[in-house]
């Protein structure tokens, strides 16, 4: 061993586990489930990944409202495929979360008891078919902006799940935009329906990217751990900048009189977001919070006999095999 190597070894030993961990993250190394990690890293990841998983699952409910009333077989097949993907994405994320040492039952319990949150946007009702277009275009559009940087996040299982999610989701936004485009090229009534959906979904979509940087309590730590690569405000600006021209092509307008292109900054300026509404919805007072939770809890409770029956069947088969072998 050279003198320099000996020195390096001693330096390693004198550093705490936490310093070594932080240095690994700083070097862009990935953390895997069996690696040592600070308890706060584990807890923060459980919180964020499970919140993400819950959002996928609860997010199926507003769209489920329109499966039986989709205007054509083509639209129905697409909507079903999208919702099916969301169930799958919930599963990838729950599984990634479970590698951190929490069980699926605990995760569900946190959702059902209200301890865990899910994206506030799914607490708004879907009252017309155009809402299916607006959700795909805006809600999935905002979700993609949020999710693409996560493909690079420091926790290996989360990053790998996000790669798959982003790849599969690329059709979700396009199918939504196609619905909007069809409505906007249709009758006056159809176009008005598209405009109405945009009016109702625009602001909640902006809120979906999270509180402003000044208000966001988790941002700083999450940035350090590369659980977040861009701040909420940066993501929001990016979303607005790329979505406004898409509305122009549709020929409908954002419900924001203050929205205008700023030559100097190279971004759109926009009006003030009603954060009071956001916090009300987060705290459980949105238009559909109770309905969504009731639907999830009922699905869990009413499905109990199915889960039990499957286990009983498996046990019976296993016993049969043992009986045959002996």
């Amino acid at each position, binding site marked *: 061993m050279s003198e320099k190597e000996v020195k390096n070894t001693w330096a390693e030993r004198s550093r705490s586990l936490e310093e070594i961990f932080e240095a690994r993250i700083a070097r862009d*190394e*990935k*953390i*895997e489930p*069996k*690696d040592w990690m600070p308890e706060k890293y584990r807890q923060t990841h459980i919180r964020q990944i499970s919140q993400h998983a819950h959002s996928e699952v609860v997010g199926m409910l507003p769209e489920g409202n329109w499966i039986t009333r989709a205007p054509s077989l*083509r639209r129905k*097949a*697409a909507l079903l*495929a999208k919702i099916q*993907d969301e169930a799958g994405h919930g599963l990838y994320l729950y599984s990634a979360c479970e590698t951190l040492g929490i069980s699926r039952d605990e995760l569900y319990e946190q959702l059902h008891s209200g301890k865990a949150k899910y994206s506030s946007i799914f607490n708004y009702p879907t009252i017309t078919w155009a809402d299916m277009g607006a959700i795909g275009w805006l809600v999935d*559009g905002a979700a993609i902006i949020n999710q693409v940087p996560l493909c690079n996040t420091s926790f*290996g299982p989360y*990053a*790998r799940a996000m790669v798959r999610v982003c790849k599969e989701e*690329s*059709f979700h*936004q*396009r*199918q939504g*935009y*196609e619905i909007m*485009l069809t409505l906007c090229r249709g009758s006056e009534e159809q176009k008005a329906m598209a405009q109405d959906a945009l009016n109702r979904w625009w602001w909640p979509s902006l809120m979906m990217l999270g509180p402003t940087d000044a208000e966001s309590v988790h941002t700083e730590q999450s940035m350090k751990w590369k659980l977040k690569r861009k701040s909420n405000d940066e993501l929001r600006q990016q979303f607005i900048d*790329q979505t406004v*021209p*898409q509305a122009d*092509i549709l020929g409908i307008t954002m419900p924001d009189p203050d929205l205008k292109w700023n030559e100097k900054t190279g971004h759109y300026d926009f009006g003030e977001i009603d954060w009071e509404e956001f916090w009300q919805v987060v705290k459980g007072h949105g238009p559909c919070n109770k309905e969504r939770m009731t639907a999830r809890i009922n699905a869990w409770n009413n499905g109990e006999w199915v889960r039990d029956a499957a286990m009983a069947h498996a046990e019976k088969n296993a016993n049969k095999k043992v009986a045959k072998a002996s």
Partner: protein
Amino acid sequence: MSVKKKNWPLWEIFVRSKNGLEHRHFGSLHAADAEMAMENARDVYTRRNEGVSIWVVESKNITASNPAENGEMFEPAQDKVYRHPTFYHLPDEVKHM
């Protein structure tokens, strides 16, 4: 002559080549138990630093699909073109989608 002992079972070996990547199937080997399978996997499959993590799974615990049934198994996905982004027609001027 003693009675022939049971054959060592077969184990499937999965190696993560570096953090951030998934474990991939590298091959298999025979070993008396999981601990021996792990040591042998290290010596057989990671002699040149090919990995940072190893999983060993006894082969009999893997349920594999039957290639002879690939027709019924994978056919349902074949006619669902609407699961792909290219199925949706958007004008060329729409960006970032």
